[in-house]
């Protein structure tokens, strides 16, 4: 997980910094040729800023995403499921490390990023502000939220920034196990006893809205978005990602007798686009701005961990060390 399906935009500054036009042309030509940009290359200020925000939010999503699943390790049904869940949660934290390192190459230190998470300045994927009430919730997360993230991450791994692509390549490799174990648990419940089936259906009913929110609201067709796509920062629109996700996973849900709680969900075969009810974008906005069922809890746990690990980190710290941007 949890490649932040949706990257929170900041308000555009009235005047963007003016970039050297010759360097900009060389930079764009490099991207057009399919070459990667590396940390010490010249890059437009807006490219750097947008990438930091995107990779940082992705990293935070991995950290916070591990929390709802982490609470279920002790309650996972059976030894094999526990082992798989422990491995998955460890992977997610590993992914956060990979991503923080990639973001750091752009000049924002890990400490700054974590501070921004703790103060609520930086966002993370909105789905983790919802509770995992039953084992079936963990199953829905492990299958469908991970699936949504993979759609996003596979696209982004073909982007233009070298360190992010390299981190994503490794992440996608591990994700394939997350998706498979989620699918396996999903099928087990769907095809199990009536109680299991009902529990899964209930969880999917509650999660459908956050799942539809996952890839973010429909893109405004703005010059900004067009620029980011030209620079291969954003690889597809939110709607395209969501459509691809529905294409791949709606059949996998329906084929094992689970229903989707949206009577208007259907594919328009003429356009190839999925049609669905309005997934309540107002709720999405409220939750991402802090007013969700678990926002405070998630940050409190993170805050607690930073606070209580501080003495260990400080004891081992060498006061003479200087911040050095990772090399690659």
């Amino acid at each position, binding site marked *: 997980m949890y490649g932040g399906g949706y990257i929170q935009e900041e308000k555009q500054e009235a005047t963007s910094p003016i970039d050297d036009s010759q360097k900009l042309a060389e930079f764009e030509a490099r991207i057009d040729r399919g070459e990667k940009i590396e940390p010490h290359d010249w890059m437009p200020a807006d490219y750097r800023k947008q990438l930091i925000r995107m990779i940082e939010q992705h990293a935070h999503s991995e950290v916070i995403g591990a929390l709802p699943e982490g609470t279920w390790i002790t*309650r996972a049904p059976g030894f094999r499921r526990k082992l798989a869940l422990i491995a998955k949660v460890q992977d997610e934290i590993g992914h956060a490390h990979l991503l923080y390192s990639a973001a750091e190459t752009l000049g924002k230190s890990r400490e700054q990023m974590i501070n921004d998470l703790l103060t609520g300045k930086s966002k993370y994927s909105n789905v983790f502000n919802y509770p995992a009430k039953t084992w079936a919730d963990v199953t829905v997360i492990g299958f469908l939220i991970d699936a949504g993230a993979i759609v996003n991450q596979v696209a982004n791994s073909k982007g233009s920034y070298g360190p992010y692509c390299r981190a994503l390549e490794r992440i996608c490799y591990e994700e394939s196990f997350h998706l498979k174990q989620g699918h396996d648990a999903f099928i087990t419940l769907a095809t199990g006893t009536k109680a299991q089936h009902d529990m899964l259906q209930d969880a999917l009913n509650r999660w459908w809205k956050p799942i539809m929110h996952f890839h973010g609201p429909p893109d405004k067709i703005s010059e900004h978005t067009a620029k980011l796509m030209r620079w291969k920062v954003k690889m597809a629109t939110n709607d395209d990602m969501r459509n691809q996700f529905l294409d791949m996973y709606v059949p996998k849900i329906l084929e094992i007798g689970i229903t989707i709680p949206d009577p208007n969900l259907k594919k328009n075969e003429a356009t190839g686009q999925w049609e669905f009810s309005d997934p309540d974008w107002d709720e999405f906005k409220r939750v991402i701005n802090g007013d969700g*069922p678990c926002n405070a809890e998630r940050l*409190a746990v993170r805050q607690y961990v930073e606070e209580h690990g501080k003495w260990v980190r400080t004891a081992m710290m060498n006061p003479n060390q200087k911040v*050095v941007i990772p090399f690659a």
Partner: protein
Amino acid sequence: MSKIPLNTPVLDPRIKRVDLESTYGTTAIGENEHWISWEVFHQKKRGDQHVHVGIVHAPDAQLALLFAKEQFGRRLACVNLWVTKSSDIFSFSYDDEDIFDNATAPEKQYREASGFRVMEKINRYKKSKQKA
């Protein structure tokens, strides 16, 4: 569609951990508190080259190796890892990448195996022998 009530107080321990001290918003992490960065090199099997795979943060080399083992040695084959401080890496600048153009330049074919064609000459020789 069932509606999830927003901001419902939940006391279920599966959702809400009990009695977290409410320190929310007070921790500020100092620079380097998550330590310095180390570049990690991974060797897949004996005899292979060590290959750069990424970065860990650690206060010293021993701990950097331990974190590298967790991050880069827990999946896929691995027999050995190296770490070195990011600050100890020296490199060329990509601005100068044209200095390497020579390496693949067509006029340097005289030092490539493909720059020499022997079959033509052999065939010509054999043909002349047959005629004779």
